[in-house]
């Protein structure tokens, strides 16, 4: 058995990134993701990598843009206000079809908000965030082990589809420690003939650019990109289904909210109430098919979020409003208790009989 160590979620991301071949990190400190930058600051110089604390988040994401153009694995990390600052750069990276990894360990907002956990950047992460038509691959870890595993996956998917990927975590998963094993993470380099690595006078030079003044050309680029997005939606949806086989109430939750929701499902089942949980692991692409299939069986869905009702829109779109979807949430850095979820489900059951 692989050796397990205790790590914070933030540290697990950093170690997994290093093991995935990432040797370039650019960031700017912000709670609650700072341990990630600290880990990189300690480790990168020892392994010949680059850790650079930039003068701002905007500078950091543009450094990521630069390294991504050379085909090297590169990442940045921040928390909500800092990720807002990075949006321009993320749009440029998406518009230049470059792989890169952005980590958002979310905190309460809007504005400077607070420093406690939140999931209120769901829209920003899954619907664009910056300007223009584009998507990120958005992965939502619910444990320290997944912080590591999904980081490795994010680098692989970003390379495969030539698009930026994001880990959408939250303060709780970032700060908590759990046993984690990192031994199965390995770096599988892929050919990147598009990268700007110096032609040595032997090949035509590559151009990395997001500016297309010719509208026909820009439309063509957009259409090509969305063909690729279609492939991602077909092949890369990931989710966990917990007690959904005979469920009458389908909870949908990701990240820390899913951990609490799972406790609620177990407690509800003990009382004879048939609840289940769909936990999206990829938020984009969203597990639409799983939700649609569940809508034939359940009486209603409950979206458990640390936001004012953001993922609930994707649930409604996925199930074509066939069944009611209600929200169970806390915001501002608060986390729903299992009791709150149980009460929401019981109220729902009462209203239907």
């Amino acid at each position: 058995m692989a050796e397990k160590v205790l790590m914070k979620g933030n540290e697990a991301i950093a170690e997994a990134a290093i093991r995935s071949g990432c040797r370039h990190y650019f960031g700017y400190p912000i709670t609650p993701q700072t341990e990630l930058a600290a880990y990189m600051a300690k480790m990168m110089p020892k392994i010949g990598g680059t850790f650079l604390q930039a003068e701002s988040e905007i500078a950091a994401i543009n450094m990521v843009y630069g390294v991504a153009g050379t085909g090297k694995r590169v990442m940045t990390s921040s928390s909500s206000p800092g990720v807002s600052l990075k949006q321009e750069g993320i749009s440029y990276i998406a518009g230049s079809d470059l792989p890169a990894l952005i980590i958002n360990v979310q905190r309460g907002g809007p504005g400077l908000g607070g420093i406690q956990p939140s999931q209120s950047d769901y829209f920003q992460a899954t619907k664009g965030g910056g300007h223009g038509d584009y998507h990120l691959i958005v992965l939502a870890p619910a444990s320290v082990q997944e912080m590591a595993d999904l980081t490795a996956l994010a680098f692989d998917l970003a390379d495969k589809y030539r698009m930026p990927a994001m880990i959408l975590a939250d303060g709780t998963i970032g700060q908590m420690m759990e046993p984690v094993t990192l031994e199965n993470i390995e770096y599988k380099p892929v050919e990147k003939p598009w990268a700007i690595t110096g032609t040595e006078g032997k090949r035509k030079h590559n151009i990395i650019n997001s500016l297309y003044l010719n509208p026909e050309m820009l439309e063509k680029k957009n259409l090509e990109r969305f063909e690729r997005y279609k492939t991602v939606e077909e092949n890369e949806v990931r989710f966990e289904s917990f007690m959904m086989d005979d469920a009458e109430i389908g909870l949908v939750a990701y990240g820390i909210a899913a951990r609490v929701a799972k406790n609620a499902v177990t407690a509800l089942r003990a009382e004879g109430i048939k609840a289940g949980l769909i936990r999206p692991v990829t938020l984009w692409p969203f597990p639409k098919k799983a939700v649609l299939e569940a809508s034939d069986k359940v009486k209603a869905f409950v979206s458990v979020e640390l936001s004012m009702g953001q993922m609930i829109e994707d649930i409604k779109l996925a199930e074509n409003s066939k069944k009611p979807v209600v929200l169970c949430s806390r915001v501002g850095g608060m986390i729903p208790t299992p009791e709150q979820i149980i009460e929401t489900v019981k109220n729902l059951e009462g209203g239907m009989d």
Partner: protein
Amino acid sequence: MTLEILFAGFGGQGILFSGKLLAYKALLEDRQVSWLPSYGPEMRGGTANCSVTISDTPIGSPIITKPDILIAMNLPSLDKYEDAVKPGGKIFIDSTLITRHVKRTDVEVYEIPATMLANEMGAPTLANMVMTGKLMSVVPEISRDFLEDALHKCVSARHQNLYDLNLKAMDIGAAYEC
């Protein structure tokens, strides 16, 4: 077996360290474990707490709302969490710093003058370890198995000289009769 333990006190009392020691011990015992700290401005002098869940089955939420065991190292922590402890649970308080008694009658109470005992042994910062020693002596699920290995993992390289002192503080806590 699932045990939910809440350590609470002032920042600087070693609240997170004690939690980490239990978490490492559980890891070495091949149990499931989660360790969740409070973080942010409260670490700069205010209250700090940490939630440790130890279980033989996969752990759902790492957030503890009804602890089996509360270790309160100051009055605000006892005031805040006393009512949350499960009936039949255990409350440990540092009676040097907490001058009132526990009001609950449906829990087991352990009053340990941990800060005083730590001062007497010349290590005023190890009151947390005195408390942890007592905790381990009365909670059968948290034995001293793997304690030494866990302690080695938690004490940083530059503080290894404090290793023996940590163990001594725990012995003093374990020997104290409430």
